[in-house]
């Protein structure tokens, strides 16, 4: 497998075929919670892309240089990663608020929410402990591969979220039968979105 080809496959797998929201069911709370507004969805997407890239880098470094060499990874990876992500998000929030007020305005309010966004932890753990998310390409990522993978996951999250927000601008105003109005219908819609994503299963042998 060529270098470029491998990056491409990692990216495509993370983006489409194992889409973190619709195929892997991770981070659904935020997906249903904020998709009723397009602006919020876009802000959240930006924030997630940013936080994910940084936290994956951190977890990759921690695992490969600290946890794994010391042989304590299996016991400690959960608390360590989540702690790192939570503290990083807090630091970042303070940092952005001071240095970049416009950026803070755009995504500041989403940052605290991201701590409990399981997608961030999932991606961070996957790049450190491959196989975590049961993708068929799973091996020890190099740092660039970890970035490509994380970027794919984050973009997949954003794509699904923004598509869903656009769809909800239609479905939310449709005369849906009473008991299904609102969230139940959002789930039914997601079922069909997930169905559309399933169509990509098996692409490039992924």
């Amino acid at each position, binding site marked *: 497998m060529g270098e470029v080809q491998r990056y491409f496959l990692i990216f495509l797998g993370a983006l489409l075929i194992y889409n973190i929201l619709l195929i892997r069911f991770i981070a659904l709370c935020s997906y249903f919670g904020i998709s009723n507004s*397009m602006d919020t969805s876009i802000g959240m997407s930006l924030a997630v892309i940013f936080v994910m890239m940084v936290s994956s880098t951190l977890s990759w470094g921690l695992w490969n240089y600290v946890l794994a060499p010391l042989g304590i990874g299996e016991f400690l990876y959960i608390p360590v990663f989540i702690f790192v992500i939570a503290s990083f998000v807090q630091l970042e929030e303070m940092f952005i608020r001071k240095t970049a007020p416009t950026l803070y305005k755009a995504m500041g309010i989403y940052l605290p929410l991201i701590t409990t966004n399981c997608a961030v932890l999932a991606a961070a753990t996957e790049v450190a402990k491959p196989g975590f998310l049961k993708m068929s390409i799973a091996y020890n990522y190099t740092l660039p591969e970890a970035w490509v993978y994380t970027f794919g996951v984050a973009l997949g999250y954003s794509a699904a979220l*923004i*598509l869903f927000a*656009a*769809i909800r*601008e*239609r*479905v939310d105003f*449709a*005369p*849906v*039968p009473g008991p*299904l109005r609102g969230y139940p*219908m959002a789930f*039914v*819609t997601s079922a*069909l*979105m997930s*169905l*559309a*994503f*399933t*169509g*990509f*299963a*098996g*692409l*490039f*042998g992924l």
Partner: protein
Amino acid sequence: MAGGGNLVVTVSPHIKSPETTGSIMRLVLLGLLPATLWACVLFGISGIAVIAISVITALFCEVTWHNLRDGKGTGRTWFALVSSLVVPIGVSAAGLGRAAPAAAIALMSAFILSEAGISRQGERRHSFDGSAAVTGLLLALVLPPLVPWWIPFVGAFIAIWLGKEIFGGLGYNVFNPALVARAILVLSWPAHLTAGWFRSLGIDATSKATPLMLAKTGAAADLTAYYAPLLLNNPGGCIGEVSAFLLLVGGAMLLWKRVITWEIPVTYLGAMAVASVLMGVDPVFHLLAGGAVLGAVFMATDYVTSPVSSRGKIVFGIMCGAITMLLRVYSKAPEGVTSAILFMNMVTPLIDRSTMPRPFGVVRAGRGVRK
């Protein structure tokens, strides 16, 4: 000279184009007619059965849903629903397997006819706009001719109830109902949906593979040999894939009648041709084979689930064509039309949102017109 007092006062405009939703749906049915009739000839009773069950069940689903939703005739509707589920199963269990579809058709038709009539109070019970018939027919056309009878039956329920009515009825669904049904049927009963092809008018009674499958596995070396049969009488494939030529005739009629516009079919097939050249596969074969023509002309052009603006339609068509070829060439499955269109259905609201035409006189500074 009539004085005042009994004049009708309505809002403008006071003249209307003669087109209605019903007239459009009738034209779509007419467009599908040549291929459907030819399929009935080629596949005989098995093809006719699938088409009949699919269309009648679709109409039945529409009537029952509307009755229950509007709370009219609730009792008789429930009775009809339960009996058309229970009786065929009973007949089947009694060992009269072949009579089951006949029983289902008879029961459902009786109910549809009784609901279509005029009630004793003189009011119209249910008005059909033809959209359910179109969905039912399209569903039948994407099924293999030898599927068990209950596949189109269940499929029509999925298409009308889950694909359309649950979203609020005609016009509100996001995904093409017939394709939703097909995708769910494929996921549920892959064995039935990927076999049951028919060898038409030929030597073998049945064949286990479609030309696309043969091309995928490399079993068919000379693809040019398939051009003529694909155009006229496809050796193996779904009911609606019997003849690319007849589908194109129907499509041309719809274009001429201005039911559909050129953008989606042309860009869909065009993008497929370009993509197949880039991927190094035979473009003519891929345009004729499988559901490409049926999808590009009749499925992707479904008003409800495709973009409304011209620019949006072009984006939609190109993406559909590209994804179809991507899936056909690089995924395990031989066909990609269903998945490609469903995927693009999902993207349609976003396309519509971002291809809003520039209002007259508005000078757009950069992108976005949000205030």
